[in-house]
């Protein structure tokens, strides 16, 4: 998918993550902040990159502010932000397809 406009998903509540995506031209730029950075930073990064790859996002500036979210939450927030950026979040979401 192509990131067409800036979009955001998630909150800054404890156990959530806020994910913002913006258009970019040269690959994935990831900015990550996390309250559990020292123990889970690399796993969060891996989860975000995997999710973007699954969605076919090749170019994006992605900012993740994580407040100790579980992997499933991080995935969901990334998916939602990407779909919102493509105006594809209102209907016909491919549940069980690329979103799983």
């Amino acid at each position: 998918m192509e990131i067409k406009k800036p979009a955001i998903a998630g909150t800054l509540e404890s156990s959530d993550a806020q994910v913002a995506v913006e258009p970019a031209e040269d690959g994935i730029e990831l900015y990550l902040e996390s309250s559990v950075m020292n123990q889970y930073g690399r796993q969060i990064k891996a989860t975000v990159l995997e999710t973007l790859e699954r969605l076919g996002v090749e170019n994006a500036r992605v900012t993740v502010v994580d407040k100790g979210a579980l992997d499933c939450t991080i995935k969901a927030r990334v998916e939602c932000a990407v779909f919102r950026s493509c105006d594809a979040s209102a209907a016909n979401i491919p549940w069980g397809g690329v979103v799983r």
Partner: protein
Amino acid sequence: MKNAVGREIPDFLLKDGREVYQGKNYMDGKYIQKASPRTRRYEKPQESKIVETLADALRQCGAKSGMTFSFHHHLRDGDYVVNMVMKAAIEELGLDELTIAASSLGNAHDPIADYIEQGKVVGIQTSGIRGRMGEVVSAGKLRTPAVIRSHGGRPRAIEGGEVHIDIAFIAAPTSDCVGNCRGIGGKSNCGSMGYAMTDAKYADHVVVVTDCLVDFPNMPASVEAIDVDAVVVVDSIGNPKKIASAAARISQNPRDLMMAEDVARVIAATPYFKEGFSFQTGVGGPSLAANLFLEKYMDERNIKMGWAIGGICGPMVELLKKGKVGKVIDVQDFDLDAVNSINQTPNHFEMSASQYANPANKGAFVNKLDFVVLAALEIDTGFNVNVLTGSDGVLRGAPGGHPDTAAGAKCCIIVTPLIRGRMATVCEHVVTVTTPGDCVDVLVTDYGIAVNPLRGDLIECLDKAGIKHVPIEELKEKAYSLVGRPDDLQWEDKVVAVLEARDGTILDVVRKIKPYTLEQE
């Protein structure tokens, strides 16, 4: 050298006879040479010991660079006294190379972080270290490693001369003109003053700081005038709202209540749950809520609690007033109900930290405990508990009475949710061992109960009562299956804090944390 909980203690710390932790009761039967305090004689009668300012009091006590000042933490996060005294010493008298020996330090003492960064404060000895002070110490900015002691370890170290206090500062809610102090009757009341008592007896000089001067004699005194050099009257010693909360409320969180109920079930399944049993609980959500469920079992079996100790709060005072507990003995108060009850409600008494928890005297109160219910930041599969360092390795907690009560009690129960946010509370290895696993008996979580294999007797009790329990490894795996297996923290070599076991051996060290990078090394 590796100690009995498997922690590597660097050799440079093992000098002057200092040993690594060897296990529970290792020092039993050994002798301790107590320090004999050197104090100033005031033979000529004085009408009053009031001096105008803190700076005057410091001068009168011969304050100079390199000294150790002591403080107690009954004013908790409301305390103004530590910052006030250090400001006068550093900014008015120009002192440096100072050491702070406090029973605990908290967020109220953030300004001290600046003095550490400026090299004015070079040593910290405390139970608790949090906020900015925890951050700068963790960043390696304190010249000497901080020394972390339990509430019982501190009076042991003072009495044994390991900590020599040059000037003790007593934050006194009320004092008379010659320094008889009480924790009640003023405008910044804290109730018990138990942590200050050993300081007053062993310091070279004692300065009382109060915001409420009362008529002589202020009796019964927690700290007595016979030990006091000077009295300073200030506008305010603390913020009453932060000293004692309005009332420690029992949690309504269903998860807390479920765990509390399990704690009470475990207690009721042991042979120690009988007429006259003794009990201590922390003030965390599930620990405090255990009071509620325990009362039900007490009524059912028609038994009463003999006595309770600890940091005290409202629900325990309530039990005392209802006649369901015989005596409450109190080293610190957490809420106004407790503050207003000490020495007022019959059978609610004050005690010193040494009497509470010191392992080197002839028998502290903790040694007679049947049950203690405690929280944990982390507990590992060896039942070792961490209540000091966060999951990022930064100092932000306090052992307090945790190691003392765990070691003394016949049944030590840790109650904690399995995960907090993404942090696994039950884990492979705790970041820092603050209470050794040989002192911890039962773990109650929201996903199940585990019993320390060292306690075959308790396993039998639980089985007999039909209380389900699992190996602690299962709980750990459950936690990791929810949150993922954490990366190990990366440390530098520099030791930023030394964690003393309550007996004075070295239980663990905290090192400087390495900056984290997202790239795999």
